[in-house]
C-alpha cells in the first residue's frame, strides 16, 4: 500500500515570497527519505506541500506537479481531505488537542473519521502508543489531558496520533528535536519498522539520524538570504554521506557551512 511520490518542478510561495524553487525528486515507496539542510532553506515548506498542508496558510500556493502513485494531488478535482488521510504528518512543534485526553488525542483521527467501536479504538490507541514508545508512560493516565505531558511526551503523542490512522505516507518534520536519546532511538526503530508498509519522509537536523535511518537523502540549500531554497543533491544516503558529488553538500556534511 506504500506510495511512490514524484515531485516535478514543485515551487511554493508565501504570498509573493518564493520559498522553494522547482524541486524535482522521486520518493520511493517502502523507504525512508531524509531531507537535510540549513535552517530556512525550505525543507518544511516542501514537506508541507506533499500533503497539501502548505495551502492552508493564507496567501500560500504551490506550483508544479506532485504525483502520488501517478495521481497528481494538485489536480483541481482532488479531494484534499482524502489526500491528507493517505499522507499523514507529524509537525515540528507538538500540537496535541488541548481539550482532549491522552486517549482521545491518539484516536482523534479515527473517531473524527467515523470509527465508533470502543474496542477497536482502544486497540488502535494501544498499538499506536506502543509504536511511539509512550505506552508505558501513559497507560495509567489515559484520561488525563494531553497537554499535561512533557514536551517530548507530547511529541510522541502526536506521532502516535499520526500513525493511529494508518496513513500510507508519513511525513515527519523534525520529530525528534525535542526528544531524549532513548525516545529518539525508539522513533528511529519505529520508522525502520514502518517502512516495510509505509513511505516515510523525515526532515532532520541530526545528520547521524539521517545516516542511520534513511535510504535516500536530499540536501536542500539556499544560495543567499531571501533566495528560494532548492534541492542541491538527492541520492542514496551512503553516497551523500560517503562521497557527495556536489562540493556544497560535502561542506555541509563536514560542518563547514557558510
Amino acid at each position, binding site marked *: 500500500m506504500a506510495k511512490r511520490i514524484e515531485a516535478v518542478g514543485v515551487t511554493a510561495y508565501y504570498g509573493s515570497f518564493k520559498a522553494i524553487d522547482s524541486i524535482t525528486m522521486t520518493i520511493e515507496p517502502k523507504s525512508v527519505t531524509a531531507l537535510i539542510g540549513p535552517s530556512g532553506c525550505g525543507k518544511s515548506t516542501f514537506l508541507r506541500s506533499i500533503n497539501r498542508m502548505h495551502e492552508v496558510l493564507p496567501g500560500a500556493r504551490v506550483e508544479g506537479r506532485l504525483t502520488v502513485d501517478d495521481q497528481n494531488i494538485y489536480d483541481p478535482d482532488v479531494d484534499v481531505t482524502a489526500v491528507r*488521510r493517505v499522507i*499523514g*504528518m507529524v509537525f515540528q512543534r507538538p*500540537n496535541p*488537542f488541548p*481539550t482532549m485526553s491522552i486517549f482521545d488525542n491518539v484516536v482523534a*483521527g479515527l473517531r*473524527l473519521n467515523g470509527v465508533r467501536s470502543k474496542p477497536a479504538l482502544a486497540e488502535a490507541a494501544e498499538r499506536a502508543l506502543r509504536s511511539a514508545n509512550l505506552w508505558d508512560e501513559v497507560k495509567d493516565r489515559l484520561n488525563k489531558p494531553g497537554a499535561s505531558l512533557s514536551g517530548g511526551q507530547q511529541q510522541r503523542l502526536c506521532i502516535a496520533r499520526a500513525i493511529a490512522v494508518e496513513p500510507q505516507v508519513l511525513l515527519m518534520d523534525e520529530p525528534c528535536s525535542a526528544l531524549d536519546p532513548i525516545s529518539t532511538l525508539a522513533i528511529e526503530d519505529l520508522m525502520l519498522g514502518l517502512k516495510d508498509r509505509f513511505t516515510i519522509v523525515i526532515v532532520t537536523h541530526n545528520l547521524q539520524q539521517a545516516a542511520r535511518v534513511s535510504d535516500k537523502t536530499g540536501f536542500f540549500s539556499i544560495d543567499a538570504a531571501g533566495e528560494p531554497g532548492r534541492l542541491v543533491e538527492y541520492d542514496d544516503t551512503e553516497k551523500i554521506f560517503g562521497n557527495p558529488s556536489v562540493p556544497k553538500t560535502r561542506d555541509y556534511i563536514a560542518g563547514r557551512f557558510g
Partner: protein
Amino acid sequence: MSVTAARTRRRARIPRCTHPQGCARTRRSAPEPALRGRRLPGWALLAIAVAALGLAAAVVYPAGIGNWVLVTVIAAILYLTGVFAAAWSVEGPRSARNRTWSALIHSAFVLAVLPLASVTWTLVAKGSRRLDHDFFFTSMRNIGARDANGGAYHAIVGTLEQTGIATLITVPLGICAAIYVVEYGRGPLAGTIRFFVGVMTGIPSIVAGLFVLSFWVLVISPKLNGGRPGYSGFAAALALTVLMLPTVVRSTEEMLRLVPASLREGAYALGVPKWKTVLRIVLPTALPGIVTGVMLALARAAGETAPVLLVAGGGASINVNPFQDNQNSLALLTFQQAGDASRYAPARAWSAALTLVALVLILTIAAKLVAGRSPLAR
C-alpha cells in the same frame, strides 16, 4: 573530527590577559552587584501610612475643607512621597522607584474596587429589606400607593423569558457569524460583516427598541394578531437580540482567533474535513471564552430598561406568555418603582435591582462551571 579540531584551534587564539594582577583591573571597573542590601522594615511602611493619615487629618479637619474622602486622597499622596523618600535613603534609587510603582498600582486597584464594593454594599443593605415571600410570589397587580406589599414575580418571569429567548436566538446566530468571519470568510463579504458588527456594537439600546417597535410591533405583530398591533415579551427579546448579537460575534471572533493554527493543521493532517475540525477541535478549545462573552452580553441585556418599556409595555400583572400582551422585567420594574410616588416603592426598587444582580451572578457562575477553564490559559 575536523570540526572539533578547528574549534579547539579557535579557542586557543583567544588573547590571554597580560596584566600582572590577572584580570583584577577589569573586575574593579565593573563592581559585582551586591546580592544583599539594607531593606526597609515592614513597620516602617506602616509608620509612614499612619503618619500620612495623621498629617492629612490635621490639615483637612481644622481647616474645614473636606471630609474623609479628601483625607484619604491627601494621605495616599503623602504615603507615596514618604515611601519614595524612605526607600531612596535606605535602599537606594532603584528600590525607591520599585516601591513607589507597586504602591501606585496597589492604590489604583483599590480605587477601582472601591466603587464596586460600595455599589454592592448599598445594594445588599437596601435591597434585602423586601426579600420576603410576597416579593418573590406576587405581582404588582392591584397594588396601590398605600399597599406595603406587592412583588416582582411578573418581572422575574419577564426577565428570564426575554433574556432566555434573546440568548437562544443570539448564540447560534452569533457563533455561526463569527465562525464564518474567522474560518471561512475571505474578501469583501467578511470585511463587510465585521464592519457592520462593529457599527452595531455602538447602537444605543433605545434605538434597538425603536427599531423593533417600528418593525415588529407596528408592522409584523398586527398580521399575527388579527390586525391589532401588540406589545409582547418576544418583541423585547428581539430588541435584546439586536443588542447582544454584536457582543457575541465580536467576543467569539476573538476567541476563535486565539485558537492556534497548529491545532487546525493537526486535525487537517489526520484527514479531518474542515467543518468537522471547526466543530470538534476549534469550538471546544474556544468554548470557555465564548461562554464568557455570551454571559457578558446576557448581563448587559438583562439590565436593559428602555427597549422593554418601548416594546413590551411593562404591565403590573403576571404574564407567562411571551408572545402576547405586556410583560415587565426586573430592570423596568426597578425603574418604575424608583420613580413611583408610593413610600413603599423605593424598597421594591432596591430589591428588584438586587434580584437582578443576583440572577446574573448565578447564571454567570453556573455557565463558568459548565464551560470549565480555558485550555489555552496555561
